[in-house]
């Protein structure tokens, strides 16, 4: 293959009502790669995610999925290989947790038995086994978030052992989720990446991002100011210019990833 990138964005920029939200940037996403998006509030992380998933109209540039422009992909085909978890999802109807998670399998036709397996696995990963018959609207905020995460995880699951060519986009997926659940979910995401899944994830916790990502893109005022391995990106100088805070960066004792400590 001449271009092994799963997703490639070329010179994409976004202007909304005359205001520049994303300055031109190009990026490529490779099989099994985890790209972390970092940046202060309003830096353009969500805008970039929406631009990459075709949810926002691009002012310039284009996004190609497997070499084919995003907007010519039939939605049904795309949904089989691209799963997106937005920051917020509102649902005012009393579906059970199992029903909401099962919606993630709706683009696929892999049969009931396999769907059931995917759903049970995602429910277990997100710690929802005990809540399957609970009405969604009666869940706590963190439980609702885990429920949508599970839905996006079952959507990306394939009947083949490899996930090469599939992409998962996660916008602040761990919001209001307890640290205990996050560990299991993080480990599961790593396993998915080992099977070839490409992941783009935005998190406000830089240390967690460093543990998960192969590469971190730092956005600041709509501009990509750094894109490199976590160790190269996470420097006290970067935290000072981008976040305006003084930090010391040490190495995590077990994962050996950079760990920023506010001074």
């Amino acid at each position, binding site marked *: 293959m001449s271009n092994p990138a799963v997703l490639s964005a070329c010179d994409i920029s976004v202007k909304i009502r005359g205001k520049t939200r994303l300055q031109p940037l190009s990026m490529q996403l490779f099989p099994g790669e985890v790209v972390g998006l970092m940046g202060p509030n309003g830096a353009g992380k969500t805008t970039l995610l929406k631009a990459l998933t075709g949810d926002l109209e691009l002012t310039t540039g284009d996004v190609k999925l497997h070499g084919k422009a995003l907007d010519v992909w039939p*939605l049904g085909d795309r949904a089989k290989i691209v799963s997106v978890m937005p920051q917020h*999802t509102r649902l005012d109807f009393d579906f059970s947790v199992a029903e909401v998670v099962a919606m993630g399998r*709706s683009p696929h036709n892999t049969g009931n038995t396999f769907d059931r397996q995917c759903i049970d696995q995602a429910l277990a990963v997100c710690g929802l086994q005990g809540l399957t018959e609970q009405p969604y609207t009666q869940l706590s905020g963190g439980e609702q978030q885990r429920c949508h995460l599970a839905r996006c995880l079952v959507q990306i699951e394939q009947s083949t052992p490899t996930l090469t060519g599939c992409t998962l986009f996660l916008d602040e997926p761990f919001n209001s989720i307890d640290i205990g659940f996050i560990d299991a979910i993080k480990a599961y995401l790593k396993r998915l990446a080992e099977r070839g899944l490409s992941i783009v994830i935005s998190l406000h916790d830089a240390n967690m991002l460093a543990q998960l990502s192969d590469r971190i893109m730092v956005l600041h005022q709509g501009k990509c100011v750094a894109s490199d391995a976590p160790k190269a990106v996470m420097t006290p100088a970067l935290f000072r210019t981008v976040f305006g805070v003084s930090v010391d960066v040490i190495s995590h004792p077990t994962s050996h990833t950079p760990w920023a400590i506010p001074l």
Partner: protein
Amino acid sequence: MWITKRAQPLTLLILIALLVVVSISALLIGTVNIPLSALFDASDYDHHSARFIVLELRLPRVLLAGLVGAILALGGVVMQALFRNPLADPSLIGVTAGASLGASLVIVLFSTTGIGLMSLTAVSMGAFSGGLAASYFVYRLARRGSEFSVSTMLLAGIAITALAGSLGNLMDFFADNAALRQISLWRMGGLDSANSERVTVVAVPALLLIASALRHRDALNVMLLGDSQARYLGINVSQVRNALIIAVAIAVCTSVAMGGTIAFIGLIVPHMARLMFGPGHIRLIPVATVLGALLLICADTIARTVIAPLELPAGVITALLGVPFFLYLLNRGTSHV
């Protein structure tokens, strides 16, 4: 859910059986109660008049009530899903107010109901065009280029409803007493003009609405998560929404044109169906359809028998029965709202 998943298919069958039983009873009950024997026993001295009353007068009326009830209930289910709001109902897109204005216009300007085509009176046609025009305006207002905003549609619906309402009041102001009475009777809703042509005219859009709702049942579930989520899950949201809004608008316009404005079925029946069967559309669509038909047939039968030989407008009965139930739902503090 009041009914467990395992019991749901049986419950739906019971509801269908109930619909059949109620429909047959509605054919036999009325100003004149007709025993079944008079229908089938040719030697009965009432045989011919009984057959006439049941087949020519009551059968079209029961069918019309069933169809109108089904359209309103299913229209409510679809609108609640499209607006992602359990309090939406078909009148939100301006259909009812537009139809009301259309009917008033025809009554005041032509002060006659006699003219018409295929026994569809001019008033019905005025109502149909008025409703369709209003929903078209609302739909256009909610669309900017390729973008479509559900909240704009909600506001546009309120605005068009208010506009049509005040124009209707203007009509009332210029109307003479006879026309005024006719207008207000029309607004109360009634099925007394039912005949086989009218049943046919309502049946076509009703079946189309049922078919398109069933066709998009999975999309309707996913669209409750929001437009972009539904797109991520592979649903062509604008295409599905266009198809469903058009189906609802045409069906509800036809039903309002034939049965006047009938309150609360469109809001309450989807709630009842959801309380019993949960929010999944594969169950909601058939249940709401059957329940809507069942309730309007009951209401209409009460309307024409309770002070027989006088007939109350069916719309009055549905609101009288519907409002207390709705208040009960609100008071119950369910998580639906």
